[in-house]
């Protein structure tokens, strides 16, 4: 029967375009439901992995999903805020450690995450180059930020102004890169990390300027009365924190009221976590404690429902495609009746002709399976990452 396979192969090769269209149709028919499942499953895994690794989140009462997405993926432009004292409250409870997150600002599109050194240990982030930030104005950048912007230890980066035309708004701060994180395959690769106090400096809550008490700054003094010095508009403000001027940076007011976006709560055990969650259940606190995994599960339930509808639609489409492909084959056999008759008149059996037709169908199905496998592999290895990057998660 090798002759029948040879004829089948030759027929498909001669009618290349027709065969390719057929192969593409069958491949798509098999690939689309598979791809939908793969994409949803892989995206869900990628989404939940980070959420599962984050025990609890404390944030301003309000949108749960927004709080989780912003805290895990640094997604929001203007995240809701809670005061730094909320972090103190968590730590004072003795039930858990807290890690501050302040994610309001950006540098050339990359989110600036104001946090503490505990964050790196918590996320198991390693340094690829340089050292961790230690002083005000120092930054550690994710692997992607370093490669995309071509920066490393010793280089500088500048925070983006929130609005160009708002004179009272946030001004750019020049920060010194002291370290680059090793690639972790997480949103941390795309972020710039600074101490939370540096983020407050970017916001203008802390600032540095020339020392008015010194005589050389007399041109900037409007008045001196009873130990109070009032500066005029000539006062020189620093937009970069250096070893020379770091002593001139200071914060006005009580830092316990300064803003955070969220606090990652790391309880030592389930009991502590439960007790802590109980404390924030009452609405009067104004805060909420969330289990990120549970919030994302809710989101994924919706996604899976939508996925089922999409797959149902694709199945209907597949049935229609099968019907069309079958029709094409039947019409093709009709047109080839003369050819089959010639083969039979020359001595070919019905089995030979059936094998010839089956081999053509087999080759198309085999080719489609290979194509589907390749497309699925590409989807599995590249599309999920691409999809997640599209939604900036």
């Amino acid at each position, binding site marked *: 029967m090798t*002759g029948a396979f040879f004829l089948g192969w*030759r027929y498909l090769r001669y009618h290349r375009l027709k065969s390719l269209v057929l192969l593409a149709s069958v491949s798509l028919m098999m690939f689309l439901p598979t791809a939908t499942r793969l994409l949803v499953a892989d995206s869900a895994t990628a989404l939940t992995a980070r959420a599962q690794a984050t025990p609890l989140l404390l944030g301003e009462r309000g949108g749960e999903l927004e709080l989780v997405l912003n805290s895990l993926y640094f997604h929001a432009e203007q995240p809701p805020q809670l005061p730094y004292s909320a972090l103190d409250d968590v730590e004072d409870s003795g039930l858990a450690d807290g890690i501050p997150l302040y994610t309001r600002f950006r540098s050339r599109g990359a989110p600036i995450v104001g946090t503490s050194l505990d964050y790196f240990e918590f996320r198991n982030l390693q340094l690829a180059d340089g050292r961790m930030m230690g002083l005000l104005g120092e930054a550690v950048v994710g692997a992607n930020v370093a490669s995309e912007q071509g920066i490393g230890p010793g280089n500088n980066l500048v925070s983006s102004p929130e609005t160009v035309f708002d004179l009272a708004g946030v001004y750019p701060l020049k920060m010194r890169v002291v370290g680059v994180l090793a690639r972790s395959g997480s949103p941390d690769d795309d972020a710039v990390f600074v101490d939370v106090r540096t983020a407050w400096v970017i916001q203008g809550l802390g600032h540095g300027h020339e020392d008015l008490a010194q005589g050389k700054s007399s041109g900037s003094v409007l008045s001196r009365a009873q130990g109070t010095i009032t500066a005029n508009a000539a006062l020189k403000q620093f937009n970069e924190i250096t070893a020379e001027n770091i002593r001139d940076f200071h914060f006005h007011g009580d830092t316990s009221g300064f803003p955070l976006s969220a606090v990652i709560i790391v309880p030592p055990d389930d009991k502590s976590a439960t007790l802590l969650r109980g404390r924030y259940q009452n609405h009067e606190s104004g805060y909420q404690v969330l289990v990120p995994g549970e919030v994302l599960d809710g989101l994924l339930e919706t996604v899976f429902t939508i996925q089922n509808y999409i797959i149902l639609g694709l199945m209907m489409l597949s049935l229609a495609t099968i019907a069309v492909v079958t029709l094409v084959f039947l019409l093709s056999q009709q047109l080839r009746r003369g050819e089959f008759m010639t083969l*039979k*008149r*020359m*001595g*070919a059996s019905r089995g030979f002709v059936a094998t010839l037709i089956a081999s053509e169908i087999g080759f198309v199905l085999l080719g489609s399976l290979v194509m589907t496998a390749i497309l699925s592999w590409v989807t599995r290895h590249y599309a999920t990452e691409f999809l997640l990057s599209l939604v900036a998660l």
Partner: protein
Amino acid sequence: MSGIQISNLKFSYASAGGFHMHIPRLDIAAGECVAIVGPSGSGKTTLLNLVAGTFVARSGEIDVAGQRLHNMTEGARRRFRIDQVGQVFQAFELLEYLSVAENILLPRLIDPDGRKSSDAQQRIQSLLASVGLQDKADKMPGELSHGERQRVAVCRAMFNRPALLLADEPTGNLDQDNKQKVVELLISQARQHDSMLMMVTHDHSMLDAFERVIDFAELVDSK
């Protein structure tokens, strides 16, 4: 007895209202080249199909090249067609998706016992050379003229060195010049391989080349 002997052959189509054919006697000697003429629809092509073992007679006897077709199973008749019969059709019936060489190899490709042999390519080349198409082995049928296609069909029919060469109006689609060439080719190939040739034709200008002309109307019993 290596020619064709037909006696008291009766055949009718199951679905063709009332057509039936009765041939009391027909003898063709081994190596003989005969032309069969007669009106359309009289059963000439049916006779070729019966002699080839494609159709089965209702009754009567057909002996071809020493094989008793009327006693054969379907499988044995297929084997007989592959081994003993070469056929040339009016519309050439070459497979458009096979090259000239592959079309000539077709009797080997459809043969369930067909084995690859080193002499196949040699045989194809020698057949093509005998019809003047030695440089066309890799061409596709669509690239050939009608006359060239029919010459390839003759090569295909001769590939297995058949005892019987059947040609059903092989000149029907050809111009006068090619008609003459194809008939000469069929006869020369049959003689060269010591094969019998039965050619059905409506073209009386071709008949002089044959040793015998059979008028189908005189062959069948019209009662």
